[in-house]
């Protein structure tokens, strides 16, 4: 049975989309069929990491929500677009699909203005799972708590919350956890991202775990290579031996182990 995993952060700039793309691709590299849905309708962007731009897709999640296409029609197989640092295809053994959100200002405004049927979004997720024979559906959410995010949390088998070692992130994560518990999310994992290297790994993990009572699935240190890549690809394929990449695979293995 497919796992629905929502990736969330209370604040923007945590590296949520970047980690989502990296982890989802790492899971796919283990032979799994994976889809990523960009439900960050207000500020979409994860498609950039897969080398797509607006002209590359004719349908988006917005079209599905307006009944202009099926959910499957808005899903693009981006496996071939996943490339290594040398520009060659990554030869991922599984499959990665991406359901992008529209980048057109008018279409973003229409969704904000009119809203949409939550049941339709939920049905679309399940249609994708069935029709694409998925093993994992990753939901890249909008930062903070809003209606779409609450739905994504509510239907998830697992929620991954990304935070930085920052007081505002810590406070926001507490709120997010409270909401997730109210929505009966079965499994919650924290990922600490953009940690300055002055913090010892075990100390930071212990601090976060003891503060929230939730396991930390991974700790990612800030690094220059990530800044240089600038969302220009999937990091672990560009820097396979980097500590960040090893941690991505550690998180992916945890998700696979929970199958």
């Amino acid at each position, binding site marked *: 049975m497919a796992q629905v995993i929502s990736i969330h952060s209370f604040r923007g700039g945590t590296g949520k989309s970047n980690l989502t793309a990296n982890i989802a691709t790492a899971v796919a590299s283990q032979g799994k069929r994976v889809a990523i849905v960009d439900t960050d309708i207000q500020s979409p962007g994860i498609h950039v990491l897969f080398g797509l731009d607006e002209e590359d897709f004719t349908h988006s999640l917005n079209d599905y929500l307006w009944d202009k296409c099926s959910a499957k029609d808005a899903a693009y197989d981006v496996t071939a677009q996943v490339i290594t640092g040398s520009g060659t295809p990554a030869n991922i053994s599984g499959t990665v699909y991406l359901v992008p959100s529209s980048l057109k*200002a*008018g279409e*973003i*405004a*229409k969704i*904000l*203005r*009119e*809203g*949409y*049927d*939550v*049941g339709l*979004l*939920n*049905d679309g997720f*399940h249609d994708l799972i069935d029709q694409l024979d998925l093993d994992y559906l990753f939901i890249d959410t909008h930062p903070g708590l*809003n*209606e*779409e995010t*609450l*739905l994504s949390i*509510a*239907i998830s088998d697992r929620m991954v919350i990304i935070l930085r070692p920052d007081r505002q992130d810590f406070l926001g994560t507490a709120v997010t956890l409270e*909401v997730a518990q*109210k*929505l*009966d999310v079965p499994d919650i994992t924290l990922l600490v991202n953009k940690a300055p290297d002055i913090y010892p790994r075990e100390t930071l993990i212990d601090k976060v775990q003891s503060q929230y009572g939730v396991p930390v699935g991974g700790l990612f240190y800030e690094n220059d290579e990530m800044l240089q890549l600038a969302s220009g690809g999937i990091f672990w394929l560009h820097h396979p031996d980097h500590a960040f990449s090893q941690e991505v695979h550690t998180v992916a293995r945890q998700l696979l182990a929970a199958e």
Partner: protein
Amino acid sequence: MSHPAHGDPPAPRQQQSAGAGPKTMTDLLLLADPERTLVNWLVRQRGASIAEIAVHLGTEPTLVQALLDDLIAAGFVTVDLTSDPAVFKPNLISRKPRTVPDQLWKALD
């Protein structure tokens, strides 16, 4: 509100109360624990019959019907009578329409 006798399969309501729903996910967070837990479960299931809900809750269908009646009246749940047995579904939208002036929206179209 009357309910069928204990053990009888309760008849679902024919329609939801007018104007009560749909509700938002934020409204859902404000529900009391038992009601919220049931709607959370219905969201995950995308709908369920009264028998399935009774099995999930480990309670009698008559008690489930009372809970569902309240949720239908409040606008959180609808019932699909075209299915046999009837299916109770969450009645949620992503957000209520925004009240931003039309001129602003038109500028974005």
